[in-house]
């Protein structure tokens, strides 16, 4: 099926999310749509899928113009979509999820047997091994994604849109997904692969279209070097490799011993974790989302109380202290969800920059808060961190993701620290800001502050870490040097112990590694 987008324009108020975008998707082709977060890729695909109506432009299937008034029209035209946030009902079974919207019935009742059979057939065809009676919420994300693909294929999708499909996967799972994409393409399904990860695009795409600020800025061959793709995506040359001096670790500053944290349901989310961290060192906590990394960070800051264990920072026991006390002991914290936990969206940039500093003598006045000092601080930080705002008075919620994160990091680093913890410091942040934030974190390390980075992005972990602790199901599966190969880290993230991971990685290099080494 030949799919054409002609001059698609979509506006949200004054914001032009898609500006006259033209795109042709040939049958059986893997078409990568490359762009930064917020470039307008997802908006474009939601237009294509009928979730948004375009303000201008048209969609043509096999040469004839179609009008999609809703997802059901798009589905009927043979377009399937795997959303970034899965569209699966957690309490449904796999069979129920696959049949939803085009249910087979026997008499008045649902024909679950046929749905099960359909899931089994499709699952066998792609080698998925998905149980039709498993409940969605009990399945790991990688399997949920397969359910989404089965869901699309069950409706005979001839164009499959995958929106950031690798964000939740380990490198090995990504590899399997790439294999599935190839298999689907070979069978004649066109694939639109939306991503901002350069490695994957080069590994799998037939054609690459780059989108920046809502416009198509060009297309490239998969053989194009990463730096060239990155430059097209960002609009200027970027440094992909972070050059940092080797760490000069000092004395041990933080030592965590046998930490046990339970969640509300009594599950051990952090299960007997112990590690040491020296001054002037970056320790990255790597792992697939949901393996206890976030909970570990929250326990150190005092947001949750461990059932057992100790957290010693420069000889002070942090367990049992309030968050305020922990912060006063010199801990800086960048929370995972900045718009929820890091900022007050309706407060101004200036106010957000002193959110946890109002007890600091710098901002105290006889009446409470020294507003002039707050204002001066804001002007200085905006300058220092290159925060793109209309001024210190602009509500922080209106800033872009990258600039919001700069506000949070600027605040946390604006006082002398004994420990700096950043959870997902660059999630949803544009490449330009990532570069800046990474350099800022490294320079904080170089002043002698011990740093913990919690990240699910292997690129980030490899770029920043002096040492890497990999977490799996609440336990640290191993602590390895910062230059450990991605394949080994990926296997460890899936629970394989270090020695086995080394052996397996040597035996079965992933596609990306082969690509880098020139084997393909």
């Amino acid at each position, binding site marked *: 099926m030949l799919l054409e987008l002609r001059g698609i324009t979509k506006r949200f108020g004054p914001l032009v999310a898609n500006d006259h975008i033209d795109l042709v998707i040939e049958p059986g082709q893997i078409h990568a749509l490359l762009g930064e977060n917020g470039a307008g890729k997802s908006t474009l695909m939601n237009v294509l*899928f009928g979730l948004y109506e375009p303000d201008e432009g048209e969609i043509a299937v096999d040469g004839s113009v179609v009008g999609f008034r809703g997802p059901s029209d798009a589905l009927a035209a043979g377009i399937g979509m795997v959303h970034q946030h899965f569209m699966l009902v957690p309490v449904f079974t796999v069979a129920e999820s696959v049949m939803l919207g085009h*249910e087979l019935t026997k008499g008045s009742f649902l024909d679950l047997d046929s749905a099960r059979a359909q899931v089994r057939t499709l699952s066998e065809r792609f080698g998925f091994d998905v149980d039709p009676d498993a409940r969605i919420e009990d399945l790991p994300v990688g399997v949920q994604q397969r359910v989404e693909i089965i869901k699309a294929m069950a409706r005979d999708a001839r164009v499959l849109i995958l929106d950031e499909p690798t964000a939740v996967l380990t490198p090995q799972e990504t590899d399997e997904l790439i294999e599935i994409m190839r298999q689907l393409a070979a069978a004649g399904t066109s694939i639109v692969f939306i991503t901002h990860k350069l490695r994957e695009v080069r590994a799998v795409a037939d054609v690459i279209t780059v989108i920046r600020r809502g416009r198509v800025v060009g297309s490239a061959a998969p053989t194009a070097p990463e730096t060239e793709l990155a430059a097209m995506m960002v609009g200027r040359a970027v440094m992909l490799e972070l050059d940092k001096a080797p760490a000069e670790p000092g004395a041990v500053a933080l030592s965590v011993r046998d930490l046990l944290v339970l969640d509300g349901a009594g599950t051990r989310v952090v299960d007997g974790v112990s590690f040491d961290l020296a001054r002037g060192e970056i320790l990255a906590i790597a792992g697939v989302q949901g393996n206890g990394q976030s909970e570990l960070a929250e326990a150190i800051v005092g947001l949750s109380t461990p059932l057992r264990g100790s957290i010693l920072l420069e000889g002070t026991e942090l367990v049992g202290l309030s968050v305020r006390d922990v912060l006063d002991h010199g801990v800086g914290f960048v929370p995972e969800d900045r718009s929820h936990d890091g900022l007050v969206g309706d407060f101004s940039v200036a106010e957000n920059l002193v959110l946890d500093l109002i007890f600091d003598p710098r901002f105290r006045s006889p009446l409470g808060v020294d507003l002039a000092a707050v204002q001066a601080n804001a002007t200085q930080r905006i300058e220092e961190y290159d925060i793109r705002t209309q001024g210190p008075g602009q509500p922080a919620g209106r800033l872009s993701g990258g600039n919001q994160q700069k506000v949070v990091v600027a605040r946390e680093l604006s006082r002398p620290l004994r420990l700096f913890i950043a959870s997902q410091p660059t999630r949803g942040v544009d490449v330009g800001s990532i570069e800046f934030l990474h350099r800022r974190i490294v320079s904080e390390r170089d002043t002698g502050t011990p740093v913990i980075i919690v990240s699910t992005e292997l690129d980030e972990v490899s770029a920043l870490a002096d040492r890497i602790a990999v977490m799996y199901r609440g336990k640290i599966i191993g602590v390895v040097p910062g230059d450990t190969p991605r394949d080994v880290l990926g296997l460890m993230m*899936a629970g394989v112990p270090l020695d086995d991971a080394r052996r397996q990685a040597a035996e079965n290099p992933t596609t990306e590694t082969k690509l880098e080494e020139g084997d393909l």
Partner: protein
Amino acid sequence: MSTVIEDRPVADAPVMSARPALRVPITLGVLGVIALLAFGLGSDSGMDSTFNLSFRTDVVQLPDLVVPTKGTCLVLSLLCLGIAAYSYFLATRLRKTPMWLTALYGVAWVFAFLVWAIEGKSTSLVDLLQGSLLLAVPIAFGAFGGVFCERSGVVNIAIEGQLLAGAFAAAVVASVTDSVYLGLLAAPVAGWLLGLLLALFTVKYAVNQIIVGVVLNVLAVGLTSFLFAAVLKPNAETLNTPPLLQPIAIPVLSKIPVLGPVLFRQTIIVYAMYVMVVVLTLALFRTRWGLRVRAVGEHPEAADTVGIQVNRTRWRNVMWGSATAGFGGAFFTVGYIGAFGPEMSGGKGYIALAAMILGRWTPIGSLGAALLFGFATKLVSALSVLGTPVPSQFLQMLPYLLTIFAVAGFVGRVRGPAAAGVPYLKG
């Protein structure tokens, strides 16, 4: 290349609780000790408790059930303590107490209480059961109405108002037309009209569902009370003397001892309740409609992406649910009391909401919970007639205490439809 992945430990590690959950065993234990001390050891030996098993009007009269008070109470409270001990044993092994065991405990405890309360006197068991069933009817219909709405993602606090509107409409229409069945038809229409307002504000205009529901309740109370005082009271003869529904005995079934007259010599509203619970259960869990409704209530975006019209589904379900609650309201007037009185629903709509939660958003569970509340209410009136050792004010608290325990999650953590209460707005 897939060989790499197969080496990975696939099975999910069992969820490990660090501490045994002792809340249930401790509660059962404390209540068991109370039963033993108060009912078992607190009653006089040599006294009997008598239960009548037939109505005086029944053709076949069953002999009364006479039990020794002290002995029965001792046996039952020891049974309760035994279950509590077993529950503790299970908890130390990190296992949950099975539901049927808790139910058995409840029955034994209540029976012990009953035997103790009527020491030296007699009460009618059939009357107690029948009364419980009747008092459960409006609660059950209200809860079904709630299930309709909440399963599609709309919280219906307005059940109370819909019951009241249904009661009013049924009384007036039945009085004017002198047809009880037309009254029965008018009740769901009245509920439906309130539902129209609920859907308009919550689904179309995305106003906070709780606030709209509360406002509609106030509206229904105000409107019916005003109309009662201004119109019905002066013209009570023509407008507020509806004919009453007559019980219909089902052949054969109604001849079953004890249960026959209780379950199968009832009015059409009660039979409608039986039908409703079966139909709604099948519809919700076995049909295309039910699957789609549940998807809309759990994850509206997911439903939207497979072409299901989220807000249209919600509109329809709010209308169905409100009509169901309105129909239940007819029970107050044409099914039970025979005339409309201001605020006669007396908070049953809120109890219905609690019954729906206690019943975990299922029709069968809701009916069970409604019967429980009905029993508690009936027990209070039966005991106050007999004059028991417990002050009547405490007894009257019983149904509401039960509600608080139920909603506070005494039965365990309950999880409702994930999107209930959240308006669906397209981006």
